[in-house]
């Protein structure tokens, strides 16, 4: 899911911005083309007027054309950019006057002037050409008048319009891009809000999302809620199942163990007693293993989704001391705790509890009678919990391996335990960004330190 390469927001933004860019370019092109058309048309109208006025001024006298050019024919071509003007007057195909090469025959009579754009005298010109057949005897005379004008003014106008269109297009694009950013952000905000509210939840919060969401998101949220309901249901079911299974197994085990204890008090024969003892130890071992497996599963589960709270390590450890004091007493052990005042941290209390309980459990198991198991909670240099005992200590060559799953010290073969305790403590420490340190005390005994 994570980092799969594309973002809905980026896609939406890019689509909107891309659309705006296409629209802006389209706008620019359309305006430019339209303006070009209009400008060309207006130049053509003037050229047409010029050509027509020249044509009107022509008379045929004795088979020869006389053309008294009206002043206005050219002065009307005056433009802001002072465009250059060229013209050519042909009788038949013969140039009577004007510029050679501007237009060339053969010419045929036409009703409307013909327009063309071409290069002439070092620039682009628009040429209007009109050919009329003038009545004369013995035969009509073909008169062709061409007037050409450079396109500087047109280009200037076009440039102005193009710049304006480009500026407008750019402004439109910038506004649209801003709108796109805003739109995509605001459109996707509910999604982000839902994601954030779901992410903020604790590991066991499987309530449906009830906040109001946009219509488009409601199928997603509905599916999500349905999933949550199913998940919650199935979690409840498995919890019930595990509880039921534990109940079904642990209760008979308890029955057997109690019977065995009673029987052990009554029988005298050595081999029978031996068998009963083995039975009791086997029951204890399997019960402890089941408990630690469940603990470990829980640590793994919660480790992914820490339910961090403001907790005081001292008060957590004091609870554990209260809880385990009866067990310690049974073994004639002293379970003590010391601290330099409260040690507040951000942590998942259930995990910390589990880790410390397992460490203390271990310490109690490996201590010899009438010794002390001590918990020290310290805030300096960082928050830490130290559990020390006065027992046999960790096997020197296996300190590293010890906290690996199911590893047990060589020198602990005879003590009931699954070996998961240190692994649990280590996992909890690492889930909180800390570590578990194991060492042997010089005065003898093991020392386990949980750093947070």
């Amino acid at each position: 899911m994570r980092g799969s390469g594309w973002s809905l927001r980026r896609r939406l933004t890019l689509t909107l911005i891309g659309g705006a860019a296409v629209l802006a370019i389209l706008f620019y092109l359309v305006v430019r083309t339209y303006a070009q058309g209009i400008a060309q048309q207006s130049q053509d109208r003037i050229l047409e007027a010029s050509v027509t006025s020249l044509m009107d001024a022509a008379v045929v006298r004795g088979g020869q054309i006389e053309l008294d050019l009206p002043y206005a024919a050219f002065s009307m071509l005056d433009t802001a950019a002072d465009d250059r003007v060229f013209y050519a007057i042909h009788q038949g195909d013969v140039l009577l006057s004007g510029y050679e090469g501007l237009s060339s025959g053969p010419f045929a009579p036409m009703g409307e002037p013909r327009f063309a754009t071409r290069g002439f005298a070092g620039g682009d010109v628009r040429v209007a050409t009109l050919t009329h057949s003038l009545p004369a005897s013995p035969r009509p005379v073909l008169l062709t008048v061409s007037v050409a004008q450079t396109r500087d003014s047109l280009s200037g106008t076009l440039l102005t319009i193009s710049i304006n269109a480009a500026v407008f297009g750019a402004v439109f694009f910038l506004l649209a891009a801003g709108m796109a950013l805003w739109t995509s952000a605001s459109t996707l905000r509910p999604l982000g809000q839902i994601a954030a509210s779901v992410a903020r939840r604790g590991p066991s919060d499987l309530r449906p999302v009830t906040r109001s969401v946009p219509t488009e998101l409601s199928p997603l949220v509905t599916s999500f809620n349905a999933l949550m309901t199913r998940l919650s249901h199935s979690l409840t079911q498995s919890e019930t199942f595990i509880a039921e299974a534990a109940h079904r197994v642990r209760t008979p085990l308890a029955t057997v163990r109690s019977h065995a204890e009673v029987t052990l008090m009554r029988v005298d024969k050595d081999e029978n007693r031996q068998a009963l003892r083995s039975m009791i130890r086997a029951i204890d071992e399997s019960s402890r293993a089941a408990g630690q497996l469940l603990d470990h599963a829980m640590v793994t589960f919660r480790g992914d989704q820490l339910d961090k709270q403001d907790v005081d390590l001292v008060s957590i450890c004091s609870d554990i001391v209260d809880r385990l004091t009866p067990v310690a007493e049974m073994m004639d052990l002293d379970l003590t705790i010391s601290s330099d005042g409260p040690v507040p941290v951000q942590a998942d209390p259930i995990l910390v509890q589990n880790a410390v309980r397992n460490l203390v459990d271990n310490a109690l198991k490996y201590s010899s009678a009438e010794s002390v198991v001590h918990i020290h909670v310290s805030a300096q240099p960082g928050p830490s919990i130290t559990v020390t005992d006065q027992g046999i200590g960790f096997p020197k060559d296996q300190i590293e391996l010890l906290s690996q799953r199911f590893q047990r010290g060589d020198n602990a073969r005879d003590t009931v335990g699954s070996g998961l305790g240190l692994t649990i403590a280590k996992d909890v420490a690492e889930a909180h960004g800390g570590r578990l340190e194991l060492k042997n005390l010089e005065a003898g005994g093991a020392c386990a330190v949980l750093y947070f």
Partner: protein
Amino acid sequence: MKYLLIEDNAELAAALCDRMRLDGHVIDHAATLSEGADFLHVGDYDLILLDIMLPDGDGRGFLERHRARQDDTPVIVLTARSEVSDRVGMLDLGADDYLTKPFDHAELQARCRAVMRRRAGAAQTVIRRGTVALNPVASVLTVGSNETTLRNRELRLLELFMNAPGQIFSKDKLVDRLFSYDDTVTENAIEVYVGRLRKHLEGSSVTISTHRGLGYRLDEG
């Protein structure tokens, strides 16, 4: 001490009752919550052992009602669930302690004693033999006017002897009772504890005698 056990599993209940009685305790057994309520209605108990899953309801509901009645009889919950999930709920609802099945009977006794000790107002039985008085809850031995606090194993050993004066306990059985069926503990360990008890009992009318090949016995002078 008088216990009420509320437990639907008849086999476990029978074994537990058997075990408790062997230690000289009085114990009544109720198979359902309503039966348990009936027992509580007519009798006084020092401590209630409560199973959490019962045919006619959840033990938690019982706990709530129990505390609502202002009944301060301590309750130890026996649960088959894993430690974590029930712990907080149990203690919040007013259980004094809890124990996960299967459990060591010695641990049950230790927890019972701890609970009783916390409730200083609760009745505290004192076992008396001659000039010796033993308060198992407070773990205090009184010889004449001389009070000694005993370590747990000394206490449990002495409690055994004082509950059954004249009975011979084999070293083997004593090891099992004191060391939770630990194979590695030798019978010599018992001699150490017996030696300590003898020292505590000096000057009293009570002695612990050695019966070679058989074990130890408490004699009242």
